[in-house]
């Protein structure tokens, strides 16, 4: 254990001297994919509840595909599959983008968490109290103002406990990143393991680090819930 900490603490936490690795890489993947996923989910969850099938059907298809297939398969398709297509390799911008394992990983992770988040938000929007919508309409609010002032603030607050779950599941999913050669926390742990052949110390240390991250996330979401959901308290 001491040997692993002495030799790998830097790589486990932030860098192997050449690139970002370990906890820093795991947190970066989590933050960027959840941020993109959130931005995707906000408009898509509204579209998911639209009455016009031309609008809701593509969104339904997207969430169905990304929730219906394993993330590992999605990652392999984005990393290995897309780059083997000629039009990707022949266009300089796409070639440059998909050449990097980290970009592929972020695309796959963001699309995956975006699909789950869309369904979480869509469900929450659907359950908005009709009285609130009625009251807003009687005030003469436009559809846009109605969503901006009434539906979205209330729906997002009510979605918070479920959404925090999704973020923590996403943290666990980042362990797949090394499939696309991204040196996340688990990859450094495997290096430490193959240097020492000491599975309990190496993976135990990784488990502790993941626990610390999870605990911080849970704590932050609990604080946010106390703040934003105070109005729902009995």
């Amino acid at each position, binding site marked *: 254990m001491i040997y692993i900490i002495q030799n790998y603490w830097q790589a486990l936490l932030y860098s192997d001297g050449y690139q970002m690795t370990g906890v820093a890489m795991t947190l970066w993947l989590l933050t960027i994919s959840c941020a993109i996923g959130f931005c995707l989910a906000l408009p898509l969850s509204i579209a998911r509840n639209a009455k016009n099938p031309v609008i809701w059907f593509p969104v339904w298809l997207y969430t169905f595909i990304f929730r219906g297939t394993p993330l590992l398969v999605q990652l392999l398709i984005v990393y290995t599959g897309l*780059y083997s297509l000629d039009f990707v390799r022949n266009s300089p911008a796409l070639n440059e983008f998909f050449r990097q394992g980290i970009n592929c990983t972020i695309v796959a992770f963001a699309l995956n968490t975006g699909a789950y988040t869309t369904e979480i938000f869509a469900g929450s929007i659907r359950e908005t109290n009709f009285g609130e919508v009625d009251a807003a309409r009687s005030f003469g609010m436009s559809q846009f103002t109605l969503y901006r002032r009434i539906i979205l603030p209330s729906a997002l607050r009510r979605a918070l406990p479920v959404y925090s779950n999704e973020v923590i599941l996403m943290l666990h999913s980042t362990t797949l990143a*090394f499939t696309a050669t991204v040196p996340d926390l688990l990859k450094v742990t*495997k290096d430490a393991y193959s240097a020492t052949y000491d599975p309990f110390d190496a993976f135990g240390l990784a488990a502790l680090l993941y626990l610390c991250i999870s605990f911080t996330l849970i704590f932050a979401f609990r604080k946010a819930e106390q703040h934003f959901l105070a109005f729902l308290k009995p």
Partner: protein
Amino acid sequence: MKKFLGLGAAALAVLVSAAPAAHAKTFTEIKFGVDPTYPPFESTTPSGDFTGFDIDLGRAICSTLHVKCVFVQQGFDGIIPALEARKFDAILSSMTVTPQRAQQIDFSSEMYNEPTSLIAKKGSGLVPTAASLKGKTVGVESGTIQESYANAYWKPAGVNVVSYPGQDQVYADLLSGRLDASLQDSVEADYGFLKTPKGTDYQLAGNVTYDPKDVLGSYIAIGIRKDEPALKAKIDYAIAKIIKNGTYKKIEAKYFNFSVY
């Protein structure tokens, strides 16, 4: 625990066999312990015969010494204790010389060495030096000595070294064009990629020779009990002889298209 078992077995073997080992024996046969799960070095044919590069070398050694060759099957993880327990006289199973193993048993002189080699697209002009690969992307398998090598010498010199979970993924990205070259065991490169239909556009770009920090480790040799210097001397003599009289080259050419010595 394994170490203790090994030591225990060794101690037991010494106790039990102190008497017979005392008188000098003349060799009429050499029993080799082999783990035949590692083609092309050692494997068994469907009919149960031993075959492979190591086996051919062993037979050549025996015929040089005019003794009979016997091969005994033994799993690799228990092969040193079995040698100490006198189930056979020598280990012939692609065993790399390491300081830990050298504490327990003796080794013959070098049998062969699997060089680490770079493969790249034909005509790329890349060679396995930091200067040639600067700014290029090189793939390695995670956890191998080749990864340690690339990280030790090439990464600091500006080579983009990318680690992969498996060797097949390294080849996949070499084919897709993400990688300019890949670094691995030469035998693995030859059998796993260059000799397959997908490897036709690629070639061996050279073996790694520069290794002042000894990252890639030592050569492969025959393991012999420490109390049998006479056998070691005979095997060393036979290895030197088959190398000198061209038998070694002939056997090598049967399995590899590059030098493994």
